[in-house]
């Protein structure tokens, strides 16, 4: 697998702003951790099915029951900023 680890690209994907020192440290640590993870290549898994879930889960259905929704204010009051019944955020474009 020997990956080319591009810390700037990954940090952007993860929406994390990292300092130079953090990038240096994380880059080195990722090298060690990914080096350790590379031991999985010792295993031939060509014919092995992946497991995403340990217990068999198929579609889960239930009756469509009417329930009382949580009041809007319970949720909006948790927001760092709100205005006129909406979440408020800084300029988007």
């Amino acid at each position: 697998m020997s990956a080319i680890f591009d810390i700037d690209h990954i940090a952007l994907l993860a929406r994390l702003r990292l300092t130079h020192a953090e990038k240096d440290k994380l880059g080195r640590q990722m090298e060690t951790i990914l080096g350790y993870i590379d031991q999985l290549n010792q295993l031939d898994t060509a014919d092995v099915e992946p497991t995403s879930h340990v217990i068999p889960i198929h579609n889960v259905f239930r009756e469509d029951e009417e329930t009382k929704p949580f009041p809007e204010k319970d949720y909006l009051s948790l927001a760092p900023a709100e205005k006129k019944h909406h979440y408020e955020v800084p300029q988007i474009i």
Partner: protein
Amino acid sequence: MHQATLLQAKDGLKQKKFSSQELTEAVFKRIDAVEDKVQAFVHLTRESAMQEAKEADKKIAAGEDAPLLGIPLALKDLICTEGARTTCASKILDQFVSPYDATVVKQLKAAGAVIVGKTNMDEFAMGSSNENSWHHPTLNPWALNRVPGGSSGGSAAAVAAEECIASLGSDTGGSIRQPASFCGITGMKPTYGRVSRFGLVAFASSLDQIGPMTKTVEDAALLMNVIGGKDPLDSTSADVALPDFMLALKNQVKGLKMGIAKEYFTSGIAPEVAKSVEAAIKTLESLGMEKVEVSLPHTEYAVATYYILACAEASTNLSRYDGVRYGYRSESSDNLKDMYLNTRSEGFGEEVKRRIILGTFVLSSGYYDAYYLKGQKVRTLIKQDFEAAYKQCDLIVAPTSPLPAFQLGEKMDDPLQMYLADIYTISANLAGIPAMSIPCGFTGDNLPIGLQLMGRHFDEETLLTVGHHFQQATDFHKNFASL
């Protein structure tokens, strides 16, 4: 009073030896006396607890009964409690107050429990020492210069320091069992799907399970009766009949086959740990159990597999912390993208960032097959190891951790070494099987050692049976640290 086990407290309340208010006051008195040293809690819910105790006393006086009526319990701070803070030991959720109760909290309240507070943890349950808490580290009651384990270190330390009668933790790669082992208590990770995850702040959704952390196996059985079961609000909770776990305590152990896997006694294990676990196996043999050698050949790949899968799931689960709907928001942003970047960079701690980066990488374009898919395939092999082993035995007996509690700071500079501390607990999460840690000895320095019992899917009962018989034959679980 605060020294009571859950069953003893229940009995005392029933016999009217003390009231729930007296018991709860005794627990808070104990907290006031030792919490400065142990720092097991993130916050206490003293007022609501005293109110709940008062209600419980009214019900007791009216002749009502419920499984946990009037019993003071503590909850790991990633289990949502309506009206009280749930911080996940993270700056990003520091002021978060959940608008609803987790299903387990509803179940505990319906069973009459008194919630005394929320316990410390590694941030977002990522860690094995509690040193990754944004609030403060928790210290091991047995040695205050050592870690209590993690990530449910606060829940373990609170039980071990007798600051609550029992607690709940959560276990994604060993986060109930390893701290239970380090603090000398009983801790069970149930089968994946046995306990609802609704209201449990998600770390790795295919691995997380809530479970009891208690002074005895009997207490764990009683709590399992309350928190188990199918929940319509968690579509991954299993529609499997919930047995009466208390009845399992009465089953016989004679003739049960315990599997011993050489992969759990590798060179990294501390000699004192190996010695105690071997002695525990002899004790179980003397109770009539049979020893069978089994092999779990993919054990050495478990840590690598886990860090791919758990971090991948974490990186997606934690993308919800964007500073928009709840939690911390950085104030110094001119536009939305900056707000995301600043909020997440200021709000998450170092270990959380590390895991988000690793998880984002293994899911990123070009690397998905090489890492994430590979991890899922090795997960299948690990699961198959257990399926093969359980054809030969009824449960597997192993150490919980290769080492006793380590010193504060000892592994903080080397994340891989910290990850490897979970080498014996991770496989159970990957396979989804139930596993429990119970005290089985002490090192020369008087640090607790844990014995791990791993069972078949949905067979917590055998673990409880064996664990209970072991505790009937030994006194390790009756030892408490002097604080």
